[in-house]
């Protein structure tokens, strides 16, 4: 049994939690920019997207962000595999303890979010990077017309449904993830923990709904 681990369980959980919280802050930035696409003039969205794609400071953050995703995913997988290995013989009847249902399906929601992320990157991010996108001229400069791409995508029924499902799932993931991160970081306190738990619910709903209303507005609206 003498398998000394390269990194302790608690350290891995710390990294998971820290990266998770970092990724949540990114989601807020992303959501803020997404809302610009609903403006009557899509210039603001295109300029913001152009800025995010070209600004050198953002490029550094981009590397950190990708690193964050990769570490969160790899550590999550390592922890999960160790957890499966910790119970090689399963129970016949299990899971009747009173617990939050969200927490039990983190790896499943994670898998769906990962698939969404891959499709999402292929649809928007890599398309923009590879330049397979129409251009608009803003202030004498030719930049990608990301807005047109987004508006076109969100007119496709199946795409909108897939997008909504993905963000409902993300909401479930965050509902457990946000408050759970504080516990893993050891930040538990009689006064603040109830507040953080409520905040977790609020954040998961705000982020999920925020991302979901945009395709709905585009699908049904005059864009």
């Amino acid at each position, binding site marked *: 049994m003498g398998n000394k681990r390269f990194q302790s369980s608690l350290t891995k959980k710390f990294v998971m939690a820290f990266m998770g919280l970092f990724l949540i802050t990114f989601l807020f930035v992303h959501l803020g920019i997404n809302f610009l696409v609903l403006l009557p003039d899509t210039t603001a969205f295109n300029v913001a997207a152009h800025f995010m794609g070209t600004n050198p400071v953002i490029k550094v953050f981009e590397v950190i962000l990708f690193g964050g995703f990769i570490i969160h995913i790899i550590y999550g997988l390592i922890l999960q595999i160790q957890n499966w290995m910790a119970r090689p013989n399963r129970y016949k009847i299990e899971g009747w*303890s009173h617990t939050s249902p969200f*927490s039990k399906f983190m790896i499943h929601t994670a898998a769906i979010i990962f698939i969404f992320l891959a499709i999402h990157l292929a649809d928007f991010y890599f398309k923009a990077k590879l330049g397979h996108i129409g251009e608009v001229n803003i202030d004498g400069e030719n930049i990608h017309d990301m807005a047109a791409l987004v508006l076109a995508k969100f007119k496709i029924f199946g795409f909108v449904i897939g997008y909504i499902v993905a963000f409902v799932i993300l909401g479930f993931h965050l509902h457990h993830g946000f408050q759970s991160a504080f516990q893993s970081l050891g930040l538990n306190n009689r006064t603040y923990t109830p507040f953080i738990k409520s905040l977790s619910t609020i954040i998961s709903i705000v982020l999920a709904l925020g991302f979901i209303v945009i395709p709905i507005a585009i699908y049904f609206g005059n864009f």
Partner: protein
Amino acid sequence: MNLTLKIWRQENPEAKGRFEKYEISEISPDSSFLEMMDLLNEQLIKEGKDPVAYDHDCREGICGMCSLYINGRPHGPDSAVTTCQLHMRKFKDGETVTIEPWRAKPFPVLKDLIVDRSALDEIIQVGGYISVNTGGVPDANDIPIAKEKADLAMDAAACIGCGACVAACKNASAMLFVSAKVSQFALLPQGKTEAKDRVKAMVAKMDELGFGNCTNTYACEAECPKEIKVTNIARMNRQFFGAKVSG
């Protein structure tokens, strides 16, 4: 009461094991779960069969020896009680009751429902104690201890080491157990001296033994017969990171 029992039978650690069905009748709703098991065993002995092996000792809910995973929950359907304190009135007449051993890689099945829980002892051995020099006994009131701290330490010390937290956890994590043992000392001045080495050693041992990683699902807290709180796990995390940072 009449019950159908589905019980895990396994001759020895190497055997494959299987569920066997038993019918038992005229059980008093006032009897304890283990008394019901005793009656079953009497019946099996009379029939010339091998009685079901299961752990127990005090039958008062204080030793942590009894176990049993009953209908999907360690220590059965009642909350804050051990199996020996569980009453048959918590079941319905005619119900099928499935009884399994604790399942975790560090808890190998020895026979039927008995598992080897010495992994928990190994964790205690690497740091779950305080070093006390011999000599005259100091006056108990010499060291001031805040009431709140003393209460928290006492609550953590209520852990009887039964392993229900590991059994309940979907990851077979022992973090509630370890955190209770870390906390009961870390909160008191006598335990602070060795707190850093203790938490590092106990966490390392827990990992080495192959327990899973807590995912903050809190099934452990829901099932703990002594109602140990998961705030202990956060305290252990704090202690651990503090110890790592300060060396």
